[in-house]
């Protein structure tokens, strides 16, 4: 494309990446590892004993991102729980993995189960799963979990939200659900033309294609770092049938929220 001053610029297309024509690229497909799922020894023996290698699970709660995982940590995992598994994906040879999600190169997502309600499985996904890995990550997670209700919590920037009138109080929440989900959602549907991508979309698509009742709650936040409001925007999710008796809005949750916000602020002291 020639410009006003006569120099020729490469034209970029929003739809089409010129690299895609490079056939050699196929050999350079990401060197990062594909997702690996490891269950704890207790779960492995449970799976062996079950009929079709499937965990007994009536609700799978998946939290993706700092605000949703903070919310689940405070309000759902406030009582006793056990680690039952881990999914690691996207590790390259240069990454170090701490298994405690304390390094910025950590790529592990942990799976927990409440001791009082072992049919509720919680997956905390604080590490970023790339869009290319999302499909296989989802297949791994659902390889031993079938026929349960799925609740996905995710968040994104409020600037991603497209609407004719921007009169929502931020933060706010919208939802999308699979066609076999029968419960009443706790908030409004995400209006057109907004879309959801990456891991939350991959999980919801999997549930839609395999007729699993699932709902995705997407929070639109205005702060880059997590704060109390960003986590509390998910409170209406606790009206879900399975979560009602599990979660209690009590002082312990407030303390946990405060602690998480403080931890985050210490790591980011530039703007207080």
């Amino acid at each position, binding site marked *: 494309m020639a410009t006003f001053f006569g120099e020729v610029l490469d034209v970029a297309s929003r739809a089409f990446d010129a690299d895609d024509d490079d056939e050699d690229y*196929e050999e350079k497909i990401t060197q990062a590892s594909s997702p690996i799922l490891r269950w704890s020894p207790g779960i492995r023996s449970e799976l062996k004993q079950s009929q079709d290698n499937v965990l007994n699970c009536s609700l799978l709660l998946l939290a993706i991102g700092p605000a949703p995982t903070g919310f689940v940590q405070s309000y759902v995992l406030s009582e006793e729980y056990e680690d039952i598994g881990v999914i690691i994906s996207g590790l390259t040879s240069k990454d170090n993995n701490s298994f405690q999600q304390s390094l910025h190169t950590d790529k592990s997502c942990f799976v927990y189960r409440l001791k009082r309600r072992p049919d509720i499985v919680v997956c905390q996904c604080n590490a970023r799963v790339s869009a290319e890995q999302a499909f296989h990550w989802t297949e791994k997670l659902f390889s031993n979990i079938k026929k349960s209700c799925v609740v996905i919590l995710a968040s994104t920037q409020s600037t991603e*939200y497209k609407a004719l009138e921007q009169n929502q109080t931020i933060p706010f929440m919208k939802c999308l*659900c699979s066609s076999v989900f029968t419960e009443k959602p706790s908030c409004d549907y*995400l209006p*057109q033309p907004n*879309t*959801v991508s990456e891991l939350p979309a991959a999980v*919801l698509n999997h549930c839609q294609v395999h007729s699993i009742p699932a709902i995705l709650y997407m929070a639109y936040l205005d702060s880059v770092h997590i704060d109390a409001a960003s986590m509390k925007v998910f409170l209406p999710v606790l009206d879900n049938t399975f979560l009602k008796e599990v979660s209690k809005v009590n002082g312990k949750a407030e303390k946990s929220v405060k602690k998480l916000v403080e931890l985050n602020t210490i790591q980011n002291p530039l703007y207080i």
Partner: protein
Amino acid sequence: MYVGCPNTPTDFKGYTLVLPAVSVGNVGQLSVDLLVTTLGLVRVGYLHSDCVLPVCGNDAFSVGKDTQGSLVTTTEVYYSEEKKIVVVQQRAPHVKGKQNEYCTSLIEWIQSYQFDKVILLTSSYSHERLDSQIQGGRLRYLATTALQQTCEDTLQNELKWLPLERRESVWGKSVGDSKQEDIPEQAKDVFIPGGGIAKRLFVQGCKENIPLAVLLVFCAEGNNVPDALTLTSSLNQWLNLLPNQSAGTPLQQWKMPNSWNLLFGSTYDKTIY
């Protein structure tokens, strides 16, 4: 790859399959949106594949003010029994490096379901046109030998469409270039810059003897709705999808879905000025 919705037909023998390629201006995908919305096609299944990036949203084809909570996923399949047409809509780009795998899976699906003919809707960079292509119509087509046997007369003589001009590579053929030798004669020197998987699918379609046509318009990035209207109207001239009585401009003939609102982003807060 194909997962059907519960209680839907699975026999598409003799149907026409229309697919979009993710290409410059997203013209093929916009075209499919028009087809599905105007013809009221019904979802019959999904193309569940790891070769396409994940995306989902709400009720892409509603018209008017209703917002139902009906989920749409990355790649979905719609059909009409009356028009004997199956249409695929793809809403996200391919995963880098997986285009060949996607084309192979697509060809296998096409062969197993025995579609009568396959039409790929795509577009190509208008700035890459030859001098001879700058004047005249912006529509071009390519057809495999298998399709030429049944449709060449309609396309060239009745509709008077122009076949895409062949272009030899400016770099010439290098010695021992095995990739070039693999390509069947009918697919040699095909050049569709910005066309997405169009060339790959056409080459594989020639090798596997699929009755495949590639329909493209030359365009640039921008407001590509008029390009989509051109492509869809041309397709309609061939397949006669709309009732004959619907006269008028393409803008009047084709309905636009709600997912086309705010194509260029949200409105801005005017109080900042």
